[in-house]
């Protein structure tokens, strides 16, 4: 590992640089809309807000601990096997999360079923391990994890709000659109339940984001 990457400068816990780690992924460097990582799960589990929320919390937990662990042992990991080492760590954490969900929030874990296992393949986690935790100290790595997980979470939840509201007239499982609307001929939009509408919703978010923030638009 290169020694130059670690310049020994005493910096405050929440220096400007560290704050940027937290805030950048929320907008200018959002994992979903800008880095286009973790799209797969954004499509799969955004039918209901509750699922999206639990997924976000699970990803947050897995990301914080995987970033922390990888960052702590970054100088011990042989670079030739680093991907598989990261995978083992992430997989172990995901199984742990799955077991904990099964023990404490059984009904949610039943709904998420396969998706929890799929956190292992969530590109954001591996992406941040490769790009950040392997080369940075534990504390900035944790901030990076929180920032990126939060960036992932808010997109997920916004998409889920749209899809649950228009798809089933509910939010967090509670009926929002009153029964009288249905009696007047209102219909839930069944298309919102299907994965393509998640992609289109994410597309709209990207569109809004880029038209507000022109520096994100690629020149070509």
């Amino acid at each position, binding site marked *: *590992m290169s020694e130059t990457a670690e310049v020994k400068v005493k910096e405050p816990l929440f220096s400007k640089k560290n704050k940027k780690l937290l805030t950048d992924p929320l907008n200018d460097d959002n994992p979903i809309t800008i880095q286009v990582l973790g799209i797969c799960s954004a499509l799969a589990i955004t039918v209901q807000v509750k699922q999206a929320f639990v997924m976000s919390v699970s990803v947050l937990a897995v990301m914080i601990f995987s970033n922390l662990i990888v960052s702590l042992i970054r*100088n*011990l*990991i*042989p*670079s*030739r*096997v680093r991907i*598989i*080492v990261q995978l*083992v*760590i992430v997989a*172990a954490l995901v*199984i*742990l999360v799955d*077991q*904990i969900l*099964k*023990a*404490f929030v*059984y*009904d949610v874990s039943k709904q998420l079923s396969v998706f929890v296992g799929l956190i292992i393949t969530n590109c954001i986690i591996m992406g941040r391990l490769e790009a950040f935790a392997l080369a940075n100290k534990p504390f900035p790595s944790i901030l990076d994890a929180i920032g990126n997980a939060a960036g992932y979470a808010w997109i997920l939840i916004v998409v889920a709000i749209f899809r649950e509201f228009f798809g089933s007239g509910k939010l967090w499982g509670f009926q929002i659109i009153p029964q009288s609307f249905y009696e007047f001929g209102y219909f839930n939009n069944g298309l919102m339940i299907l994965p393509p509408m998640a992609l289109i919703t994410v597309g709209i978010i990207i569109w809004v984001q880029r038209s507000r923030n022109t520096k994100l638009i690629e020149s070509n």
Partner: protein
Amino acid sequence: MDVNKNSYIFGFSAVLVIVVAAVLSFAAESLKPMQTENVRIEKMQNILTSVGISATPAEAGELFDQYIIDQKLLSNKGTVVDKDGLTAFDIDAVKQYKDKNLSPEEKFYPLFTFQNEEGKKYIVPMAGKGLWGPIWGYVAFAEDMNTIVGSTFDHKSETPGLGAEIKEDFFTQKFIGKTIFEGNEFVSVEIVKGGQPWDSPHKVDGISGGTITSVGVGEMMERTLGVYVPYFKNTSKASL
């Protein structure tokens, strides 16, 4: 220290894997009691749902003890058997259905008796095969042991929006009021394909696009209830 030496890589991998394995097996073992308890509670909730009582996980145990006044085990001939240390609740219908090593005589059929102010109801657990995997459910009968008063079904991996709809209320509601005997003859309840008449007391409208799952439900009911027929006949005659 050269971290890219082969010997180091082997050593590092071995230590990592052993540590991870130790952590995971510790977590799995220590969380197991809670997980099995969750499965148990879910089963109680399902049994209560079939008679129209929705219980939260916290109250399921209490309501179950309050309402389920009797548990019986039936042999494959439909006679009540006494098996030491085995209650009706312990029988995992899905496991028993899938276990190819069990001879018919080794299979036991649970029957739960529910009682509230309105009277008794009899709950029969069942398991069968859908399109992609196992399906299971509980069907509750009125005191005449003929009329269905409620049902609940679930599945492992049926297609969402099609076969998976068997667990939805609109499907389970259709069973209410159907009967399984025509005169003295057992006819079960048939799940018919869409478009066919289903206003007979022995027919239920199936799910369009979920035909194989619907047929699986019908097959599961006929096969399982068939075992209970001798018991139902004897008991309802005796009480008349």
